């Protein structure tokens, strides 16, 4: 990011804690990141790494009974939105920051037509007349490449396939031309063939509309073809950040190396007969948080790793990593 392009969204040491019983545990643990105008960024990590909690924190959609932001700032256009009251957040959501959810099957109201559901957002935020909102809805449906949008606007969600529904959700999210789009695993619930189409659609719309995109995914294969920068999260912490090409060429964190090693295409190109899986699982939220949290699964861990958490350090231009041994291990796994 250059100074000429100030970040539209920036997280500063964001910490979101989840309450379990009497105690609370960090689901997002001091994550900082910046997203420039029109930039695309992916957040990668296994299930349970805090990716979705991060997105919900940004949207202000945390259930206050369960989780809340305890420290850090979320800057949208320079103003902190982490602790805005709900009624102020409501005007931002859907208009300035939008989100696409994982399940296209259940994210649409079954009793309203899709045209109505797209129009609803526009009416809410821009106060358009019902007629104008309906026109905008048809426009949006054609923008997301739904064939015959004018007649399809009268369809109910159950009359559409999963891919079509995800297109409708994208249309809803983009109806007010937001400046930031959070896509939380937008393709996980779809067929593989449809996944590629939806990703392509999201990317082309991102470029056309010049909005910033945060793509949350556990699939590095998805990342490779789409975004320009990647943040790798592990157990609520940011462990590596790099440009996509840099990350694939020189993964510095053993976790990133593990994720890449478990990609079928990459394993094949390296002549491996079996996929290299990362042993073990992400530590549960309730696990003690001392030292490097990846140490228990790390093939390169030394005693020192378990004692103190490594800070993020620079290993290249725009490439940071949180690993004690990043320097000595070099590029290869």
């Amino acid at each position, binding site marked *: 990011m250059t100074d000429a392009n100030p970040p539209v969204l920036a997280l500063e040491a964001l910490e979101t804690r989840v309450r379990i019983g009497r105690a609370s545990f960090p689901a997002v643990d001091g994550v900082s990141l910046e997203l420039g105008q029109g930039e695309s960024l992916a957040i990668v990590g296994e299930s349970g790494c805090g990716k979705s909690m991060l997105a919900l924190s940004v*949207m202000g*959609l945390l259930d206050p009974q369960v989780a809340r932001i305890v420290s850090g700032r979320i800057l949208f256009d320079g103003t902190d939105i982490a602790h805005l009251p709900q009624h102020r*957040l*409501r*005007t*931002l*959501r*859907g*208009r300035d920051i*939008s*989100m696409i*959810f994982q*399940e296209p099957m*259940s*994210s*649409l*109201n*079954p*009793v*309203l*037509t899709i*045209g*109505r559901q797209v129009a*609803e*957002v526009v009416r*809410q*935020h821009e106060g358009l007349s019902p007629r104008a909102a309906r026109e905008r809805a048809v426009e949006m449906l054609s923008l997301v490449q739904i064939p*015959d949008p*004018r*007649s*399809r*606007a*009268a*369809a109910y969600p*159950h009359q559409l396939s999963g891919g079509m529904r995800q297109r409708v*959700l994208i249309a*809803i*999210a983009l109806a007010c031309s937001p400046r930031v789009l959070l896509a939380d695993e937008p393709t996980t619930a779809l067929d593989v063939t449809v996944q590629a189409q939806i990703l392509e659609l999201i990317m082309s719309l991102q470029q056309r509309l010049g909005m910033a995109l945060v793509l949350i995914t556990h699939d590095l294969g998805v990342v490779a073809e789409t975004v320009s920068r990647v943040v790798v999260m592990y157990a609520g912490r940011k462990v590596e950040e790099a440009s996509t090409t840099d990350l694939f060429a020189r993964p510095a964190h053993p976790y990133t190396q593990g994720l890449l090693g478990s990609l079928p295409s990459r394993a094949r190109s390296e002549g491996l007969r079996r996929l290299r899986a990362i042993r073990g699982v992400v530590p549960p939220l309730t696990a003690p948080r001392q030292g490097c949290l990846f140490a228990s699964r790390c093939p390169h861990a030394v005693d020192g790793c378990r004692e103190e958490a490594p800070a993020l350090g620079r290993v290249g231009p725009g490439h940071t990593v949180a690993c004690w041994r990043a320097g000595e291990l070099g590029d290869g796994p």
Partner: protein
Amino acid sequence: MRNPPRAFRTETQASAGKPAGVVAATLSRLWRNPTACFGGTLLALLAASAVLAPLLAQHDPLALVPAERLRAPSHEHLFGTDMLGRDLYARVLHGGRLSLTVGILTAVICSLVGLAIGLVAGFSRLADALIMRVMDGIMAIPGILLAIALATIVGGGVSTIVLAIAVPEVPVVVRVVRGVVLTLREQTYVEAARSLGTRPGRILLRHILPNSLAPLIVQATYICGLAILIEAYLSFLGAGIPPEFPSWGNIMAEGRGFVLIAEWIILIPGAFVAATVLSLNLLGDALRDMLDPRTRRAL
């Protein structure tokens, strides 16, 4: 995929009258369901007989003809006469007007009040705690006793009888609606709506209300049937509609003393009550199956 021009035509027609499209689709599916078809036809016949009572019955339901007392059903008096010589055919048809009015009014009032209270209870945790304790209180008293007590306090008359029957039934509707709202509130599309900055009031009206109508309609048919029964009980016990106006319960109450020599006075209005309640329940069951999204696609 259907051929485009045809699909275009049908779908734009559907969009022209959107709610009507849904209602028409439901009605046409109801018509194809044998249970619903039978229930609906029976109910329509009963309703028609009540509405058209003055045309269908030549005799005055209130005219006393002492000489013709306790006549068995015949060509002149289709359903016979009662102990005061009044034509039972005319009385039963006219009585249907009252009984059906009570049933429908009760169902409508219960639904509206129950819906409003249930939505609030389901949506606000604080109101929920308060409202549900009051509802539990009402439910703790046996409905029929509460209705008798209320009817005694406020006196006879259609409006007071409807009130007496509606009060014990409202908590039932509140529970149904609240339960539906509680599950709907957790739906992804409600969360999605929140993520789009939709205000809580709008979420309630646009997303939750339309989705809770189906179980409510089903509940309303049961309450309608129940109200007709309770009205009959109350009138039979003398706490209901004043005897000068015939209702099915009333007619049975008056025939009580003559059941051994003129059993038709009780049996015929009783059969009408049974037929009405049966048809409403059949219709309610069919609607329940049809409006449930999980079974809807199978039909």
